[in-house]
């Protein structure tokens, strides 16, 4: 297949072929799902079917699913829609959380990148019952957060809890009621669905006010004509991703191979539970941008952190929150696998990473000898 190994699934996952088929089916129908005539009703059927599929992915009722234009909108909606003024967020949340509530108090994380429950407990003691937002899994390190424990503490303080599950859903089992959260954000394109569609799951009975005004779609929770084909694709992707696949063995083989080349290479969050598809690893002494470019030339796509900062190269706030020194965090890249990753992709990455490391360290050695 491709001449490239695409290992940046946490930025976006290529669309799964059956997802595209489902979308084309929906496109053939046309119709505005709000129209009462036959064309409208046919479009509505696609939206309803997808709502059931997405609901099943996270163990909720279809009526609890509100389709949005993506994870960013879902996060913005959740944080703006609960009516809670006081907000606590983990220090490693995605920017769509941090920027939506710049006044939020930040819950620290430990050196493994896990939210500090003791700190949260102290913060919850404040006067006003807050909204707490803690992500399911981090987009840069893949570290899975103790969301159920967060909920247990939050409940005692009458807090509401939102969980950004954009990077978790489809990669690990995510169950709204198992976690106990009130709100859950999802994105289709992170699990093999199309870009431009996501969902906010609002637990029945949780307070929620719509921010966007208009035609009253999505049971008055999100106005705007539904992205029917996108939603159909999201449904199909949700259903396929329920039957998980084994990524841990690929990941473990890759990490062992890289650390065999450079024993000082640090894998962030390795000591705790992580998503099986994500590796955040440093290459000692080699700048992340250099690595990304060299790997790209060798036909391997990875990233130097989150994709969404629109090209700005800034140091990872996630690694900084974990107490990683700036000089070290500048050498970390993110490798993220997905549904179409095969063993050969991993081989290509290992070879390219190893080649670069040896080139750089040898030139250092020869420079040292020359001096």
């Amino acid at each position: 297949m491709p001449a490239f190994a695409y290992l940046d699934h946490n930025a976006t996952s290529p669309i799964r072929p059956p997802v595209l088929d489902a979308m084309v089916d929906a496109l053939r129908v046309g119709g505005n799902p709000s129209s009462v005539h036959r064309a409208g009703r046919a479009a509505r059927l696609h939206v309803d079917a997808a709502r059931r599929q997405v609901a099943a992915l996270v163990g909720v009722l279809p009526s609890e699913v509100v389709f949005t234009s993506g994870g960013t909108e879902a996060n913005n909606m959740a944080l703006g829609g609960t009516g809670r003024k006081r907000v606590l967020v983990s220090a490693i949340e995605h920017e769509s959380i941090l920027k939506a509530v710049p006044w939020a108090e930040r819950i620290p994380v430990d050196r493994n990148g896990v939210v500090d429950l003791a700190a949260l407990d102290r913060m919850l003691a404040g006067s006003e019952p807050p909204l707490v937002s803690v992500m399911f899994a981090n987009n840069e390190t893949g570290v899975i957060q103790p969301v159920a424990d967060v909920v247990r503490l939050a409940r005692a303080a009458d807090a509401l809890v939102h969980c950004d599950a954009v990077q978790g859903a489809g990669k690990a089992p995510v169950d709204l009621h198992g976690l106990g959260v009130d709100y859950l954000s999802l994105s289709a394109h992170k699990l093999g669905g199309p870009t431009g569609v996501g969902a906010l799951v609002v637990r029945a009975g949780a307070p929620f006010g719509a921010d966007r005004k208009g035609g009253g779609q999505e049971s008055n929770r999100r106005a705007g004509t539904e992205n029917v084909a996108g939603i159909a694709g999201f449904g199909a992707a949700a259903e396929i991703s329920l039957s998980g696949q084994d990524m841990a063995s690929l990941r473990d083989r890759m990490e062992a191979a890289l650390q065999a080349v450079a024993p000082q290479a640090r894998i962030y969050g390795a000591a705790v539970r992580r998503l099986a598809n994500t590796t955040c690893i440093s290459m000692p002494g080699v700048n992340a941008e250099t690595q990304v470019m060299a790997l790209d030339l060798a036909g391997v796509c990875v990233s130097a952190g989150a994709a969404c900062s629109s090209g700005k190269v800034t140091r990872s706030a996630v690694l900084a929150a974990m107490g990683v020194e700036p000089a070290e965090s500048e050498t970390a890249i993110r490798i993220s696998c997905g549904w179409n990753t095969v063993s050969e992709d991993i081989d290509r990455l290992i070879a390219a990473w190893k080649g670069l490391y040896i080139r750089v360290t040898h030139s250092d050695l020869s420079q040292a000898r020359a001096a």
Partner: protein
Amino acid sequence: MNAFSQIRRNDQPIYLDYQATTPMDPRVLEAMMPYFTYKFGNPHSRSHSYGWEAEEGVEKARGQVARLIGADEKEVIFTSGATESNNLAIRGVAEFYKDRKNHIVTTVTEHKCVLDTCRHLEQNGFEVTYLPVQQNGLIDLQVLRDAITDKTVVVSVMAVNNEIGVIQPLAEIGRICREKKVFFHTDAAQAAGKIPLDVEAMNIDLLSISGHKIYGPKGIGALYVRRKPRVRLVPLIVGGGQERGFRSGTLPTPLCVGLGEAAEICLKEMDGEAKRLKKLQERMLKGLQAKLPEIYVNGDLEHRIPGNLNISFAHVEGESLMMGIKGLSVSSGSACTSASLEPSYVLRALGVEEEMAHTSLRIGLGRFTTEQEVDTAVDDLAHHVTKLREMSPLWEMSQEGIDIKSIEWAAH
């Protein structure tokens, strides 16, 4: 040409609801497909070629959308649709300038998403003037001029109405707004691609576009935001800072590409298509008038997009008529509110009697509508209207010359 045959099967009803949504043009889907499959990168990924390739697609599309409205590509922001564009334009500008100005001018016939946004702002301390419309659906420019105060921040007037298709005098509105130094926003969801729009000539500062109303995909729209003189907005969706900070979120590359392609096709084919649709519109209206007495067109027939008719069929309940004409997909008003039985607020604003408003249908013609479909629709409508009128005691009374309004109905 009937590319629609690829989409519509013969057993499906004739689609005459082009103001609710349009089928996607197969050429648009073709342009989108590579971005669904092998060009799938995140356009914000700057570190590898997948990202660059996606970004190229997005930026080409931005230029295509810009050309449709005579804008610079840097002035186009992608959104999830016209509802979001309208929310962002009006709220964004109101909130940015709220320390100095607190007044908004709009019209009573706007789309619900504009009206609801204005109501929301009213609850938050803004004042809103809802301009009435004349019997033909157009605003009175003198009334607009008089409504603008030194506290007015934005005038929001739709370019084309979604129910009656009338075209507001955009250039004149723009001139007044520029003269009075207030921003001019127009909801062009129903206008873009159908009538020539030029943000410079018309002095438009903010303009909303929808993908699925111009034979593009659903889930994508655009907002034009003028750079000179600069219009500033408070974003509604924050996060990664995409779209110059006005609208965060990963851009859906295939949808952006689809919107761009749809815009380019509309621009290229606009003149010929407008002439073709005008003929179909006339054929439809003349056909109906030849077969049916007492039918009335709502809204100005001259200042109107050719792809729309809104007709009251006196003494025939619109909902019953819709149930009868199963072979036609039409609507009794806007799709958002089509499940409700309330008479259209747009028709009410024209001064159409409630009784009469209940008898109206919106008929939308578009790119894939054929003469044959129009003829079938005329026959079908005439047949059912005649049949329903034959069963109607009101029709019988009116034919006997009884003024129905003079009857005092017994209270129940």
